[in-house]
Every structure is written in C-alpha cells, then in structure tokens.
C-alpha cells in the first residue's frame, strides 16, 4: 500500500475527531474525540516513518502516546472533580470563565 492511502485515512480520522470536539457537549466524549485526533496524528507519523525507512517517527508516536495518557489522566480527574461538585457534565453549562 502506498503511503498516501494511510495519510488520507489519517486525515479522515482527524476530521471526524475535530467534528466530535465541536459538536458534542459531554466532556467525556470530547476527551474521546481528542484521542481520535491524537491517534490520527500517530498514524501519520508512523506512515511517514515507513515512507522514509526511518525509525525515528515511531519514537515520536510513542511520545505522543505518553502525552495522550497524561491528557486523559488530567481530563478524567477534572471530570471526576466536576461530578463531585455537582456541576452539570455539559461544556455549554460550565460557563463561569466565559467573558
């Protein structure tokens, strides 16, 4: 398979994730859509690494996975804190910082 197939597939996944981040209102689902976008980036990195015959893209993908894990942990901690304080789990309702 040519690398362009993988790149177009990663563009598809990234756009689906971006649409989810914009359209969904549940913070849990927004975090899931962020995961989609990060994974699309990983797929592009790894297909470029295969295209160039160079392993370094795979190391970058590994670092992206670490960053995604950190983002999940902090995001889920925020969601649990929101639930504890009985705030609504809806990003349109949490508007204290809106100007």
């Amino acid at each position: 398979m040519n690398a362009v197939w993988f790149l177009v597939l990663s563009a598809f996944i990234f756009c689906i994730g971006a649409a989810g981040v914009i359209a969904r209102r549940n913070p849990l689902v927004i975090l899931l859509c962020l995961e989609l976008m990060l994974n699309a980036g990983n797929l592009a990195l790894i297909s470029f690494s295969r295209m160039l015959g160079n392993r370094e893209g795979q190391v970058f993908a590994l670092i992206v996975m670490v960053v995604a894990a950190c983002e999940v942990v902090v995001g889920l901690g925020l969601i649990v804190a929101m639930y504890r304080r009985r705030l609504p789990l809806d990003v349109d309702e949490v508007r204290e910082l809106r100007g």
Partner: protein
Amino acid sequence: MLLEQVLFFVAAAGAIGGALGVVLLRNPFFSVLALVAHLISLALLFLLLRAEFIAAAQLVVYAGAVMVLYVFVVAYVGGVEETVGGEGAIGRVGPVFAGALLVELCIAIIGSALPAIDSRGPHVAAGFGSPGAIGKLLLEKFLIPFEAASFLLLVAAVGAVVLARRRRGLEDSVG
C-alpha cells in the same frame, strides 16, 4: 501484496467505523467501546506499517489501560445521554467545519509534490520496528525526550490525585 490490501481496507473500515461510532453514539459507554474497536484497527494498521512495537504498545497501553480508566469514570459518573449535534449554531457548524478541514487536508496531502508519498517506502529489514530497535533509539538518541516523558507522567499522576481528591468545604459551599 493482495493480502496486504485486504487487511488495509478491513482495518481502515474498522478505524473509520469506530471513529464515527465515538462521535455519533449517544451513550458515552458505547462511545468508549467504539474507541476500543478503533484502537484495535489502528494497531493492525501499525503492523502493516512495520511498527510492531508501537502496535503492541497501542494494544496494551491504550486499548488496555487507558480505556479501562475511561470505563471506570463512565461507570462512576453515570452515562449521561445527550442529543448529538445539539441545538444552536455550534451543532451545525461542526460537520461543515470537519468537511472543509478534510478537503483542505486532502488537497495538502495529494497535491504535495513529495515523490516518496506515492511509493511503498524503501525495503526495510525484518526487525524494523522491533522493541530492541526502538529501545536503542529511545535510550541513545532520544534520551532527553524519554526522560521528559517520564517526568510528564509523574506530574500528570500527581495532578490527577490533587484534582480528584475529596476536599472538605468546597463541596458544601456548592451543594
């Protein structure tokens, strides 16, 4: 050659189907399950790209550990059903924005004059993405990013504990 193409299209259909499931399903629990299917399809794609170690890490770390964390939080918070798209302008802008982004990205990818983009890439030896090769890179050339990543994980773990712990006073003032 043919098997590779069949595997690619099966995995691509799984990945796109899983991604659509994450966005379109109304119950967050089913969204998490769709993301697990998406991640497993992506691991298959990584195997096709000769990234064996990344595929294994994807399965163990992502589809295993991170998704269990999600399932726990969804079970704790309770699945809140919501309408997809929602009311207001935002719900309608989302798909339009995504479509425009997709068109732009495809123009950028296909229209770029990179000669290697239309090739299968150079021939690589059998152990291209093996744990040994990746580990050697991580510990030699990318030692500083590796240590920074471990420090970032430590900070995130401490931050999650601080964020989610029970604080006296705060809850009473709100509830």
